[in-house]
């Protein structure tokens, strides 16, 4: 009888952020739905109460049902029969319970049957689901795709497909192909038009999560003879029309409950979503940004379960006559795990809030012209969101892998056996720093924000925030870190060689992340008066300081000519 929402007080705290008032007002258009829908909130407090109560349902389902099924799902996994995917029994039960609880289409507008939740509480649900079963978070989290349908589909498409998602039909995004992974502009799946204008899809997609879903968003080449991104369009394929077979599913290391499919499109009927040629350039980029935030949430969920498993074991396991948590080597490891967990969670919700703000403005812009100051705000929040998303995904996923590694380490030999959840957590964690863009690609997405000073603009927003007395010394430390960071950035900008910048990019992006997460922990711990976050702030800043110094030392003592030693 566990509740993964109420047993984790930090979640409620993050929901209390002062920006929520603005987010809710924008998202609810000053509560205009209250007269039309009996489940719409009447004011800010009512909306917050709704989020709290619905997250309580999420927490209960995760604690009572999904977490309990995770081990069986991991062992059984899905299978393919007659070109269709059959989920593991536990996965099917999880989906059923989420449908009955009405947790699909959470962020969709009410007129399509959704709950009209902002991204922030929705992402919090993802964080909770991932802790219960990381692989299941994928199936559940693919409801994100409805966001892309909502943003770029026409009214008729929205009215036909989004209510189905809200009722519990699942989605997939069919992007990757055997020869187009990170490099999506090489996508070859062919889209052609019949004489009557009907689009047909032919070709193969690979590594498609939940590839046998009900509604697919498909990236395909609609412009014959084209070779780059400008020849790609986005299509909607409805499984009810048939024409796509599942050839096989991958035998994976982790997230085994989530079927990863190879799909064969055989003249499958599809419909164009949005404008031709904008598939990759605009729509998939939007889709990926949403998905990346989802993986950032998934990563935080993994960090959470890894930390909890490790903590419990360290308290119970006795060696040399006392629980191992009493040994410095163990308690340090645990506190660093907790600090990484807390830091990545602060960053996750900071990012989610900015996504919420700019998306709400974008949506309002569909209804009326934005005022100049609203437009300016939208642009700024969009930039902040785009800058923070690769940090949240890239660094959050690396942290969850480190936490999963340390979780096994704390379990010692037992952790290497299949008897404890930690080995599953370790395998499940591994994909988070790979899919939806590897950490290396997140660095590519992030580095521009280093060199242009965008991260400095974000950091500047924290510098005036109130900090509790005991954390002020930490703030001074972070200010010193910023100086070191600025010096390193200046060095790279001075050399101004794209390849050299790429070579040093990971270090620079990590430094920015260290500083931003340090600041967030300090300001959040002060704002929420959280002792545990304050403790994590101390631990994290100690680590971040050393990390920043390490990277700075590397960059300062390095010369571009040395790059040659690294080339094969």
């Amino acid at each position: 009888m566990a509740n993964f929402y109420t047993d984790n007080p930090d979640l409620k705290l993050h929901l209390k952020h002062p920006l929520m008032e603005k987010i809710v007002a924008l998202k609810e258009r000053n509560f205009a739905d209250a007269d039309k829908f009996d489940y719409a909130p009447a004011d800010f407090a009512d909306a917050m109460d709704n989020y709290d109560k619905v997250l309580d349902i999420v927490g209960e389902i995760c604690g009572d049902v999904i977490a309990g099924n995770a081990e069986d799902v991991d062992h059984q996994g899905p299978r393919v029969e007659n070109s269709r995917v059959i989920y593991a029994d536990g996965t099917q039960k999880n989906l059923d319970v989420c449908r009955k609880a009405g947790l699909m289409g959470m962020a969709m507008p009410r007129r399509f049957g959704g709950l009209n939740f902002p991204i922030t509480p929705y992402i919090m649900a993802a964080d909770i689901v991932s802790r219960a079963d990381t692989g299941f978070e994928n199936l559940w989290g693919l409801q994100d795709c409805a966001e892309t349908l909502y943003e770029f589909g026409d009214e008729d498409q929205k009215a036909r497909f989004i209510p189905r998602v809200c009722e519990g039909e699942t989605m997939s995004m069919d992007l990757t192909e055997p020869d187009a992974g990170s490099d999506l502009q090489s996508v070859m799946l062919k889209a052609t038009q019949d004489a009557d204008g009907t689009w047909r899809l032919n070709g193969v997609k690979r590594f498609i999560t939940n590839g046998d879903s009900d509604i697919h968003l498909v990236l395909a080449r609609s412009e014959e003879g084209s070779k780059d991104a400008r020849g790609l369009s986005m299509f909607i394929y409805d499984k009810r029309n048939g024409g796509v077979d599942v050839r096989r599913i991958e035998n994976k290391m982790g997230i085994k409950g989530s079927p990863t499919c190879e799909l064969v499109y055989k003249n499958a009927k599809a419909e164009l979503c949005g404008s031709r040629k904008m598939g990759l350039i605009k729509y998939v980029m939007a889709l990926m940004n949403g998905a990346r935030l989802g993986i950032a949430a998934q990563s935080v969920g993994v960090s959470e379960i890894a930390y909890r498993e490790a903590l419990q074991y360290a308290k119970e396991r006795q060696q040399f006559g006392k629980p191992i948590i009493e040994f410095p080597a163990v308690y340090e490891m645990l506190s660093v795990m907790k600090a990484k967990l807390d830091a990545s969670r602060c960053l996750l919700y900071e990012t989610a809030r900015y996504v919420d703000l700019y998306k709400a403005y974008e949506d309002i812009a569909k209804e009326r012209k934005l005022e100049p100051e609203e437009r300016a705000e939208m642009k700024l929040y969009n930039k902040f969101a785009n800058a923070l998303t690769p940090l949240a995904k890239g660094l959050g996923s690396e942290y969850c892998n480190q936490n999963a590694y340390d979780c096994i380490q704390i379990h010692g030999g037992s952790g290497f056996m299949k008897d404890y959840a930690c080995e599953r957590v370790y395998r499940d964690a591994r994909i988070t720093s790979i899919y939806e863009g590897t950490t290396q690609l997140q660095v590519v997405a992030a580095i521009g924000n280093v060199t242009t000073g965008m991260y400095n603009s974000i950091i500047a927003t924290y510098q005036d925030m109130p900090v509790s007395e005991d954390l002020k010394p930490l703030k001074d430390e972070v200010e010193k870190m910023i100086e070191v960071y600025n010096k390193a950035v200046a060095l790279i900008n001075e050399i101004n060689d794209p390849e050299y910048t790429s070579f040093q990019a990971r270090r620079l992006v990590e430094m920015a992340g260290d500083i931003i997460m340090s600041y967030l922990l300090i300001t959040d711990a002060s704002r929420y008066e959280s002792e545990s976050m304050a403790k994590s702030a101390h631990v994290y800043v100690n680590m971040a300081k050393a990390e920043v110094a390490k990277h700075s030392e590397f960059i300062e003592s390095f010369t571009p000519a040395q790059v040659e030693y690294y080339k094969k």
Partner: protein
Amino acid sequence: MSLNIIVLAKQVPDTRNVGKDAMKEDGTINRAALPAIFNPEDLNALEQALRLKDANPGSTVTLLTMGLPRAAEIIREAIFRGADAGIVLTDRALGGADTLATSYSLAQAVKKFGNYDIILGGRQAIDGDTAQVGPQIAEKLGIPQVTYAEEILDLSNGTVTVKRRLESGVETVKAPLPCVVTVNGSAAECRPRNAKRLMRYKRAVSPSEKAKLSEEQQAYVDAHPYLQLQEWGAAYVDADPEQIGLAGSPTKVKAIENVVFTAKESRRMDNNDEQIEDLVKELIANHTIG
């Protein structure tokens, strides 16, 4: 075919998570220390009711509970999970009831409710563990009862077919409607609370809860009939004062003993078949086991 389904439920102290302060010195339950929850097997019964509703569109599921006014909490929970309405049978005069008085009071409420096709309830409540109330209600209403139900297999043509889970196996029985079915904990888990239903009905209140709200909140409830839960008293259900509450309860608690198990003697034996077999024989002989 649309059905009128009544689900009997009880709000109980959560005896599954008993801490050291769960019992008072006199041996009675310290209700303040235990959270009040929806009796688990009543949730199994609710699920069976909701499945009947799913299969028979237009049906209504009404929760009926007897208890303190705060029992409205479990009505809201049932509504969040899919029930349509609920009634709290509450009255000072009903207090102190044993199973006989309780079943009489509930049977009176069912009669007042009138037209019903089937009554479902949990096998037993985790506080009293008697399993008597459901069957007694059936007796008082003069209708058939099916106990230990695990699944309602079919309901058609005025007959319900029920799979019963018994100690020795499974039995499938048929009963004419209306009847009482008490549901086992081995039946399907209840579906979760639904997000939209929760947001829609979170302000549903009983009259006594409404009385404690601000004027503005009261006006809101008045304007939204679906937020009004019912509260019935003993007189409303035409209950005979002699048959309810303490007066109607022949069960009198003579004494409560606080039993603390302490081992007075111990015996060591070696880990071999022979000695274990001797011990088993001895335990059978003195009726400790077997």
